[in-house]
């Protein structure tokens, strides 16, 4: 079938568009996978962190004289943190920084003229870039967690529902990062927003202290915030599955995705009006 015929056919058009973004993701995947030493050195950081967490929580649990807090044993805490850390570090380099640079350098003016959606283009790149990091982080992280605290019981449903939460958490992180990057249209330096965002993730995103270990009142608040719905929720569900928890997390994710998606769309359309191309 010729290209024209594919385009005339409605479903073919959608497939054609999907293929375009798939190719963008693929290019980013290979670009990221090429720098193997970088991948390994990032994973080394995950290893050191898991090692630190293991010692910290083993000592903390034994001093508190408990084997379980908030339904989580030490092993579950470590696997939970390993996954949250792996998911989160996989997204580097930061998307907000890339967009910020595009806005400031003016390359955005060229990108928006190309035959693709700017937002979908970056989403494909975001996913493609993260896959090699994610795979290697999870592989090395699981190995280290297995050696340090042993295995935990995993069920297929926990994995399946966990993957759903992970995917939507990724979309949520993407939108917030996009918004931070787009603020470069109005402010000179977006790094302060990036720091505050990453610290929000650090405190309420379960990157060092799982939210299940928070005091009750704070746990309820943290679970409603977007930070916990990015990567913590998926990791938490995988180590200890509860259907009611999945429904609660999933609903919270959808609300935040809708909110940040609309904000991102609005800011992008408003910001794009500031772009002026002066030949070159």
């Amino acid at each position, binding site marked *: 079938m010729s290209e024209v015929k594919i385009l005339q056919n409605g479903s073919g058009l959608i497939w054609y568009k999907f293929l375009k973004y798939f190719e963008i993701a693929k290019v980013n995947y290979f670009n990221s996978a090429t*720098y193997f*030493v*970088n991948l390994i*050195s*990032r994973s*080394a*950081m995950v290893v*050191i*962190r898991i*090692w*630190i967490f293991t*010692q*910290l929580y083993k*000592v*903390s649990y034994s*001093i*508190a004289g408990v084997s379980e*807090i908030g339904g989580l044993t030490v092993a579950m805490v470590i696997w939970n943190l390993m996954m949250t850390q792996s998911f989160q570090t996989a997204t580097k380099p930061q998307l907000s920084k890339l967009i910020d640079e595009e806005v400031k350098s003016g390359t955005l003016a060229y990108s928006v003229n190309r035959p693709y959606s700017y937002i979908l283009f970056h989403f494909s790149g975001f996913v493609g870039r993260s896959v090699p990091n994610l795979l290697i982080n999870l592989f090395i992280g699981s190995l280290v967690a297995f050696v340090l605290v042993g295995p935990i019981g995993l069920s297929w449903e926990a994995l399946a529902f966990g993957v759903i939460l992970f995917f939507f958490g990724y979309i949520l992180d993407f939108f917030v990062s996009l918004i931070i990057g787009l603020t470069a249209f109005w*402010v*000179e*330096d977006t*790094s*302060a*927003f990036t*720091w*505050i965002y990453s*610290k*929000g993730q*650090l*405190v309420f995103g379960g990157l*060092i*202290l799982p939210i299940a*270990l*928070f*005091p009750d009142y*704070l746990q309820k608040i943290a679970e409603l915030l977007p930070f916990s719905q990015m990567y913590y929720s998926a990791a938490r569900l995988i180590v200890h599955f509860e259907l009611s928890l999945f429904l609660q997390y999933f609903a919270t994710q959808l609300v935040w995705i809708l909110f940040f998606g609309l904000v991102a769309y609005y800011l992008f359309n408003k910001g794009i009006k500031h772009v002026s191309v002066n030949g070159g």
Partner: protein
Amino acid sequence: MFLSTVVKYISLTWEMTKLSILSAMEYRVSFFVQVFGMFVNDIAFIVMWLIFFQKFPSINGWQFQDTVMLFALTTVNFAIVMIFARGAFELSRTIARGELDYYLSFPKNVLWHVLVSKTEISAIGDLLFGLIIFFFSGNISLEKIGLFVVIGILTALIFLNFIIITQSITFYVGNFEEAAEQMFHALLGFAFYPQTAFYGALKIVMLTIIPAFFITTLPVQLIQKFNLQLFLILIGFWIFTTIIATVIFKRGLRRYESGNLINVKM
């Protein structure tokens, strides 16, 4: 002679840093956003540990106030390096791209010149944060304030030596930028946790490859309860790392090959 050279370099460092800060202050909004943003950023760490210590009040005798002291010290020594010697973090890239040529043409020490070539404005937020929370880290006496200042500067110098050593490896292996950065993050990473939680092989890592023990554990111990012997060990470690950093950089510089890059510095 030696002393007057040291004094001259210190005053030159001060002048260079002052110029960088003044030029950054030209963009007033950006300047304050960076400083204030970093201050808020640092508060987040304290909030997280406040939550942690509600659940686990004491880790082998280590309490929330010890963590406050740890953060006060770490943010201050980190800030000193970032304000006065931000260029250290660019060393690897500068070597790999052959951009050291620019510094070689000046009469002053090459390493010093690279180090002071940049100032991180946001680190002023770190410095303010560290100085303020120090006063919330338990009973403060004049002796403690004096110790905090001396040990803060000493650990900053050890910190700087570690960065120079890891970044200078680039002279020998080609590209070491990402690895050097990760080693730096690993070192900083240890500074986040209650120091009494570590044992076994991890403790050995902290004493050798990633010498976090000398930048966090030992200094905090010294400020809380001074011990001359331990203080001398800290000074000894500073001298030891200074010698290694100088030798690695000097030998590396002999292997350096120009990038033949023409650059215009404005």
